[in-house]
């Protein structure tokens, strides 16, 4: 698996990731995270939201309840994803290729009313 610790790839991109709507509980109660990813993966492709999800689960999420964030290798139903403030459905969902400076927001709709 491609890994951000791979020493050869110097080029990286930096994005901000926000968790709201209760999701922050799963991410050390921090709303905003700055995430650095390789600009290119080992197979030459750009990192996508799918890649980001994997990265978040493996490297950022300390909470064991992965199932509250990820289901079937994708964002759990009921969690909205905004890519630069736009619904990710407008941007190709999990296949969206991340760009330097992107702002990705995960909002849970599952919590209290």
């Amino acid at each position, binding site marked *: 698996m491609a890994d951000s610790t791979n020493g050869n790839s110097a080029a990286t991109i930096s994005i901000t990731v926000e968790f709201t709507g209760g999701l922050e509980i799963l991410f050390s109660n921090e709303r905003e995270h700055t995430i650095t990813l390789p600009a290119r993966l080992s197979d030459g492709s750009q990192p996508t939201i799918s890649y980001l999800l994997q990265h978040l689960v493996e490297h950022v999420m300390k909470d064991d*309840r992965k199932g509250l964030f990820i289901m079937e290798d994708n964002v759990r139903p009921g969690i909205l994803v905004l890519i630069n403030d736009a*619904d990710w459905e*407008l941007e190709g969902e999990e296949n969206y290729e991340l760009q330097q400076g992107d702002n990705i927001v995960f*909002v849970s709709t599952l919590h*209290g*009313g």
Partner: protein
Amino acid sequence: MAPTACFNCKEARAVIIRPKNRHKLCRACFIEIFETEVHETITGANLFFRGERVAIGASGGKDSTVLAAVLKTLNERYDYGLNLVLLSIDEGIRGYRDDSLETVKRNAQQYEMPLTIVGYGELYGWTMDQVVEQIGKKGNCTYCGVFRRQALDRGAARLGIQHVVTGHNADDVAETVMMNLLRGDLPRLSRGTSIVTASGGSDIKRSKPLKYAYEKEIVLYAHHRQLDYFTTECIYSPEAFRGSARTLVKDLEKIRPSSILDIVKSGEDMAALVPREVSQSGKSCKSSAAVEEEATGGCGSQNGRTSGGEMAAMEQQLAENEAAESHETEIQLPKKVNGRAPKVVKAQTLGHCERCGYISSQPICKACTLLEGLNRNRPKTAIEVGIGMEDEEGSSTLARQMEQAQLTNS
């Protein structure tokens, strides 16, 4: 991917795809259309009258915050002439409600609405922390849900307000429809989808102006208007939504986004198909408004959303029914039974609780029953305000505690 233009104004960048019709909208058009649709729901159902005092059941969560923001906007834009106030319930859960009540207090300032907070402690003599101390974490959501339902009405009555609006959204209604199908609850199937429900002894009207609004759009509305709302899972019901009808509804939305409103539509149609003897049972209240009695379970702070445990309880009940039934009829094999017997449906009669007067299908309402159990087992040292001699059953009635309740105005 090139930015998509807004379906409505054809100019600005679309940031939203609407679940119900897949329209792509920009921020400004989305906010306006969302508000307009709530306005259409309100006028279509004749929810309000000019000069009416309306209490918004406010939890500090997304739904009630959006409801308050939208109602304020619409009240000004269309000159409804409403007198809006915020009404909050303090369940008495330290570390949970404290923060959300702070949010409500900020909302009160932001929307310039007066706020009233009613506490379980004052109303029932028990805070949720104390309930949990007594009965443990298992099953406490039932207490919370039952107490909450009455608390909003009681609070409104105290303020002399006849109408409480809540933030129930289309997802909540869809979930209720599915849940009532699963639990085979015809009376609730017949009224669970109503936008207006008349409530307990105090003739307080309840309504859900966001009934047709997707939860997704509510969250996005709050996001794009940068509303100040609070989110935390109740500390006493972690993962309350697992394995429930709620998960099913979310899965459905993933497959076909319109399905949430489709379920609401189905629910409304089926409500009209529930046999009259069931749907009209106990309809002592005037008007066509449905009667909504106390909920049997679920967490109030989650709008009565379902929990996984509810299915197990339901199954147990049904298994008992089935066992009883098969002992009576099915042991003797071939015996003539009319295959086309008329459908027999058990009606449910709603009356009033003998103790507190709240609407109930039983002689004693759920809250009073729960309180009785709590009070009977309460350690003598912990007796508090409003509860007198514990051996005297009638003394701990809700009605009396209501009289003694003090409302905290802030």
